[in-house]
């Protein structure tokens, strides 16, 4: 039994993957809560494709690829924030327009004979391919993202609740949204490099959605979400190690199981609560979500 737990740790590959997933689980779990609350999961899933032209541009100009990807993805996030404000429909429409256009642009730019082959794959990693230097970079960026989140926690909460709440002296809601999209973009960037696109989307949305059904407190939700991300990430890697399942997919499966368990638990809890209350008293406000 103990060997079952320690065996994976004896391998550099799994140890590094565990560390990477732990770091990204912590930051992804926290950022994810805002992604879920601001309903921008689409951007978490698709922003990675938006960095394509930035990547190719960097390759053509001879700049570091990571820099090009970073510029591309942050720009994509900001353009989404701007278009989202100018269009009558939900942010999803803005995301669809920006991401497909940028992706198409990237494909066309990559036709240039000077562009290196398989360029997009270069930034799409696998948890098992992580380097020590990746861990350092991921750790630093994760710390920075968490610090900014901590600093702006109350403003993010207030503006998500009521964009008009800022008041004349406060920070503008548009600025806060742009800040959030930038944080998501940065997280997606380090995430796809370390974990691959599928896993990033799942780690940004899964734990936060699970925590959301369990609690009504933002601070509790963030702690829960980070905890769920860490536990599922580690459990997924053990599953991949012992059951020989593709690593990213194994972690995603664990995240989904965690969400389903949380949703079932919450549904049962609500039912019991409703029954234990005297009749006539409303348990949930009408139209809590339609």
């Amino acid at each position, binding site marked *: 039994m103990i060997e079952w737990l320690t065996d*994976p740790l004896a391998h550099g*590959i799994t140890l590094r993957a565990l560390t990477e997933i732990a770091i990204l689980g912590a930051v992804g779990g926290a950022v994810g809560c805002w992604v879920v609350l601001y309903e921008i999961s689409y951007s978490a899933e698709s922003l990675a494709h938006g960095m394509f032209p930035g990547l190719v541009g960097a390759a053509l100009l001879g700049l570091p690829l990571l820099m090009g990807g970073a510029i591309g993805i942050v720009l994509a996030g900001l353009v989404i924030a701007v278009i989202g404000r100018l269009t009558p429909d939900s942010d999803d429409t803005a995301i669809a327009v920006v991401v497909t256009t940028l992706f198409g642009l990237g494909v066309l730019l990559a036709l240039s004979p000077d562009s290196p082959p398989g360029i997009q794959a270069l930034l799409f990693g696998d948890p098992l391919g992580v380097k020590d230097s990746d861990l350092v970079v991921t750790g630093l960026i994760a710390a920075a993202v968490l610090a900014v989140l901590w600093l702006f926690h109350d403003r993010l909460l207030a503006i998500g609740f009521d964009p008009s709440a800022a008041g004349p002296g406060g920070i503008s809601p548009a600025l806060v949204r742009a800040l959030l999209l930038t944080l998501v973009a940065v997280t997606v960037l380090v995430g796809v490099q370390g974990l691959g696109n599928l896993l990033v989307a799942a780690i940004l949305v899964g734990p936060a959605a699970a925590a959301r*059904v369990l609690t009504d407190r933002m601070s509790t939700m963030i702690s829960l979400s980070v905890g769920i991300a860490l536990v599922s990430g580690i459990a997924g890697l053990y599953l991949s190690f012992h059951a020989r399942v593709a690593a990213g997919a194994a972690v995603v499966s664990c995240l989904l199981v965690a969400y389903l368990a949380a949703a079932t638990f919450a549904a049962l809890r609500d039912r019991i609560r409703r029954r234990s209350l005297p009749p006539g008293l409303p348990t949930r406000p009408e139209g809590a979500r339609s």
Partner: protein
Amino acid sequence: MDAFSLPFVQRGLIEILLLAIPCGLIGTWIVLRGLAFHSHAIGTATFPGLVLADGIGFSAALGAFGAALGFTLLATLIGRSKRTGTDSVTALALAACLAVGVILASDVFSSGANVDTLLFGSLLAIDSGDLWLAAGAAVLALAASFVFGHHWLAKGFDPGAADRMRSGSTAFDAALLTVVAVTVVATLGAVGALLVSTLVVVPAATARLFASRLGSLQIASVLLVAIEGAFGLWLSAQTDAPPGATIAVVSGAVFLAGLGFRALTRRSGMKPAILAAALLALAGIAAGCGSTGSGGDGPKVVATTTQVGDFVSQVGGDEVDLTVILKPNTDPHEYEPRPSDVKAVADADIVFRSGGHLDDWTSDLISDSGSEAEVVDLSEGLPVQLHGEDEHEHGHEDEHAHEEHADEGEHEDGEEIDPHWWQDPVNVRFATGRIESALADRNPGQATYYQGRARRFDNQIGNLITGIKACLRKVPADSRKIVTDHDAFGYFTNRFGIETVGTVIPALTTEAQPSAGDLAELEETIKREKVKAVFPESSVSPALSEAVARDTGASTDYSLYGDTLGPEGSAGETWLGSMKSNADAMVKGMTGGSQSCFGGASD
């Protein structure tokens, strides 16, 4: 408008005009009901369906549609938890579908690259099945809009009221989601999974900037899909770019122009004419970029892969007008045809295929381009044929058995032939002979020229075999073990008595991922067998191989040419060069750099 006289462009045009109906109509609902993420997710979530269709062997469209329905059901199921926002639900359901797809592709079927090509559609490779699907989607969209339109509108306007009325509101939603699924699956063949939104969201969102009534919104959306699609197709034919990406950029630009136009007219009353002029200028610039041209005498010949291209040019020399479709170092898994490729195939006298799943798309390209070319599949009748990966991991002592039963060039059901046949020079000798006779039949006047060049190439191959064998003798027999990225080197190791101890990536699709357990075991094997080097392939991202190598102290300094040759100026520019380079890299790797071949050809 010369581009539209080509038959394959005409077929693409019909497809996009047919698709305009469902994409425009349903796109309106997608935008009004906030289903943009959902529709994008459906396109991507078809992946497990494609893997299953490929693995079990049924129609890809059916697999895609099944997966799309599965995704929709899953999303509805997860969506029953009231406190999870619809977009989070979509993301979760999508992650679930993709995870299933990755596991199926990596751990169940060991899928090949043909799964990937299905994810990347193209308007230049439309067959009658695609046209029927698009027409069916158009009819369905029209009928459903007619029957359910007002219910969808009521729900979109005021979900609460519509729910309270309860006039079978779930059934109407289910109808909408089903039509969205059919529409998205129908667009897959035209633009591929990643650009579905280009047709189903962007035009409707653009129309939404200006149209204020549902009727005008729907008509404008349909027209926009048709115009942007047709213009993008024409532009791609002029500039020789892939049509999907071109349409994406065109529709994105139109949306941005519309947005800017709306903002400007609201502020200062700018005239529409200025916008129209700007758009026309943009189109003009784009059209001006286009230029195509190829020269050369002799029969028009198309080669699908870089290796085949090299063989043909070795034999054909100046007396052949050769177009190679895959460019050096491109991942054949992510190939999207360009107009010049289709045109080359359409005009070709002979098409030389490498065969197997590496260029599966060729048969579509040939039938869709209306080409009457003679197709030579070089993988047929080869003297050495190896089967699926399980076999050559254990090496092959009984090569002759294969040589005998391979005469037919056909293989038993369900057992795929390893398509990397050119890694064995003996096969290349045979293929050269076939190329020579095919060229000579087509152009008898130059038969002696071809024969001379073929003989010279054959001599070079003979020298190559002797050279590699001599060089490998420098490596102690028990050190002749390698670990590669993926299994592209079975023929090489089989010919030269090298043992492939393991591979890093479990399947040939780019979506496949290894498991932590498999990699850990691979590391153990590397340490136990004292393998000194892991060989990344030049066109695959080396992160995983490097990780394995770091842990085991093996080297990854020597990379191999696997699926493609190298770009101009590299050691692997020609097939001969790539083989010398691979042999040198392997010998260096196996001896820790103390021995080399051909004077260090891999440097």
